[in-house]
């Protein structure tokens, strides 16, 4: 048993089943929507209704009085879908306009949509489609696209994405939609307003329905409907916004990726960069593979972002399953490649190796002088230029990146800067260590690698000359090798740090919390609390100004001459001579002579 509704079409009364009625009524209102703004729309509408009435009449009889779903379906099939003949209407409408210029423009009922234009295509019809969408001359779009492809570097991808994402205008209706209503700011804001209005109306209608509602079950049904509709409208409203955001970010990321890939390929022709590839990756193919993998790994999501953004922005409801799946697979492949290369390379950085070598000190004195072997010889030896040196110095405190590639004509080396650390000694003597560190696949290879680091220290009595650089010999890989000079200073003894150690001193603790760089050029005494500066008096610790510093002590070799207002001291091959206001002391081959002024009186 089915409920029927009585309707009147074109003055004829029909009994129609409820569901068939719903369908027919929707169909008619759709057609009405298409023709509502057309010249003579109501006339067309009544003609169509008359024809439908006639057809339905043919399907009913004295025996079969009720119009069924099948009847409505057959009528709809004969009459055609509104969009099939709406295209006709618009075209005629525009013909009409050209024939009859006095007629003012009628609003076209079709909303403009983005399609590829197969009729004016050069490659995929993307440019021509965009040109019709934005109502811009095709030439400009093509020119822009051309310039971007050849000078922008990225839009070839964009073009391909657009090609995939934008459907081709195949049917007449689509072609008309392609050229449909002009898109401008007014129009877009109108659409947005309409969508917002729709949202509001739904809410209002829902409120009304609640008021009139008949039962609790009904309420929940309606609430469900409402939420569903609300979400749809909401998605419509914000879909564009989200689409735009996705698109913008996608393009920005794309630029980023493109320029880094571009950068890498430029750098690939750079000798130094190539050297780095050789010392970091196990072999060259790992690098190429890694680069490829990263492009896929980062590129695919970016492409999909742009793809989705365009789809949302232009409301393209068309999804390519094959594309999604293959994008997913390619991404996965990229991920696997990155993972493989990453693990393969990373495994070689897995374990830390450390070798501590003690250096026997020649001097037993209470003060040790530390100075950097400026490394000019070494640099010359390795064809390092001052630029490289500057490069290291500019990085100053980012010690971990203080590495350059050097070569001495035969082979290439990784060269790094040493660091210096000073700690209290547990014994009564100075102790000097060279701590070498490296990373490796396992402990053993890491230690072996650390042992391979070349570094040398020269001693001239109490003067310790530190090489500025250490060398990782060829063909050893770069595995974050480090060299640290560790000095253990016993209580009460003093070390002097030469000015040129400024960038080498690393995180040395001292009583005054003096910054590493400022510790250079001073003497430090180990006290119970820690290192204390003994010639920094009167100096503002925060002031980096070097003026007023006492002169560094003379080197321990050679003659010493001190000349002040009140006294003179000279130590040379003849002996020691001290002349002061009150007393004179002379030590020479004739013996020790002491003369005091008082005695003279």
């Amino acid at each position: 048993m089915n409920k029927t509704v009585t309707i009147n079409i074109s003055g004829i009364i029909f009994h129609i089943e409820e569901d068939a009625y719903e369908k027919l009524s929707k169909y008619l209102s759709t057609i009405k929507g298409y023709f509502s703004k057309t010249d003579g729309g109501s006339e067309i509408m009544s003609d169509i209704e008359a024809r439908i009435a006639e057809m339905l009449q043919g399907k009913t009889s004295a025996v079969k009085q009720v119009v069924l779903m099948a009847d409505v379906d057959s009528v709809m099939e004969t009459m055609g879908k509104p969009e099939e003949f709406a295209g006709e209407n618009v075209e005629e409408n525009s013909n009409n306009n050209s024939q009859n210029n006095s007629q003012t423009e009628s609003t076209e009922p079709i909303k403009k949509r983005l399609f590829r234009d197969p009729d004016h295509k050069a490659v995929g019809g993307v440019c021509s489609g965009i040109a019709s969408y934005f109502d811009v001359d095709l030439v400009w779009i093509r020119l822009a696209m051309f310039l971007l492809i050849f000078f922008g570097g990225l839009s070839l991808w964009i073009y391909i994405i657009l090609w995939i994402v934008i459907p081709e205008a195949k049917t007449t209706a689509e072609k008309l939609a392609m050229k449909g209503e002009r898109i401008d700011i007014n129009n877009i804001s109108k659409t947005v307003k309409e969508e917002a209005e729709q949202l509001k109306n739904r809410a209002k209608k829902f409120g009304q329905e609640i008021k009139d509602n008949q039962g609790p079950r009904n309420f929940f049904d309606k609430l469900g409907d409402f939420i569903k509709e609300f979400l749809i409208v909401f998605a419509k409203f914000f879909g564009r916004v989200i689409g735009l955001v996705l698109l913008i970010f996608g393009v920005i990321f794309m630029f980023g990726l493109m320029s880094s890939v571009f950068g890498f390929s430029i750098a690939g022709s750079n000798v130094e960069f190539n050297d780095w590839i050789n010392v970091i990756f196990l072999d060259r193919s790992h690098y190429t593979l890694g680069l490829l993998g990263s492009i896929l790994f980062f590129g695919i999501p970016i492409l999909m972002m742009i793809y989705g953004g365009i789809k949302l922005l232009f409301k393209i409801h068309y999804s390519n399953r094959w594309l999604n799946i293959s994008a997913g697979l390619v991404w996965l492949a990229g991920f696997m490649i990155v993972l493989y290369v990453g693990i393969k390379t990373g495994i070689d950085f897995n374990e830390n190796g450390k070798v501590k070598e003690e250096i026997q000190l020649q001097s037993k004195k209470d003060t040790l002088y530390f100075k950097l072997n400026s490394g000019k010889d070494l640099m010359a030896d390795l064809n390092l230029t001052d630029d490289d040196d500057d490069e290291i110095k500019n990085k100053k405190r980012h010690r971990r990146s203080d590495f350059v590639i050097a070569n001495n004509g035969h082979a290439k080396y990784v060269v790094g800067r040493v660091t210096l650390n000073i700690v209290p000694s547990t014994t009564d003597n100075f102790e000097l260590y060279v701590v070498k560190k490296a990373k490796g696949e396992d402990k053993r290879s890491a230690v072996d690698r650390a042992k391979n680091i070349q570094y040398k220290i020269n001693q001239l009595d109490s003067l310790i000359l530190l090489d500025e650089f250490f060398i990782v010999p060829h063909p050893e890989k770069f595995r974050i090798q480090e060299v640290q000079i560790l000095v253990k200073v016993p209580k009460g003894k003093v070390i002097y740090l030469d000015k040129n150690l400024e960038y080498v001193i690393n995180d040395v603790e001292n009583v005054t919390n003096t910054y590493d760089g400022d510790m250079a050029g001073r003497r430090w005494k180990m006290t119970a609390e820690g290192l204390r500066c003994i010639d920094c008096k009167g100096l503002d610790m925060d002031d980096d100004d070097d003026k007023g510093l006492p002169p560094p002590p003379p080197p321990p070799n050679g003659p010493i001459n001190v000349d002040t207002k009140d006294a003179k001291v000279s130590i040379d091959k003849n002996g020691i001579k001290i002349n002061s206001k009150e007393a004179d002391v002379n030590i020479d081959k004739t013996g020790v002579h002491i003369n005091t002024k008082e005695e003279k009186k």
Partner: protein
Amino acid sequence: MTNSENTKAQMRKGVLELCILSILSQGDAYPTEIIDKLKETKLVVVEGTLYPLLTRLKNTGLLTYRWEESTSGPPRKYYKLTEIGEQFLKEVQQSWFEMVDMVNKTIQK
């Protein structure tokens, strides 16, 4: 496949106007009659196409119509060619034949 369908649809659309006028020149008719004749020639795929076209022809003054009561249904709208319409049809027919000749010559080469 779709492309040829498309072209055919475009061609049908172009000559539809001419056919309607020709049918009406043989005597007045109401839409259903016109549709039946057009269906024989397979020129109309969906009926909906016809109504906007008829209204437009009428509005440009090529056609007029009169109402006639029907025994079996709603009153029928009988369309009739006006004098302008007849004149128009002659011209269009003339150019149609010329065009067909030219087109045939072109495609038969």
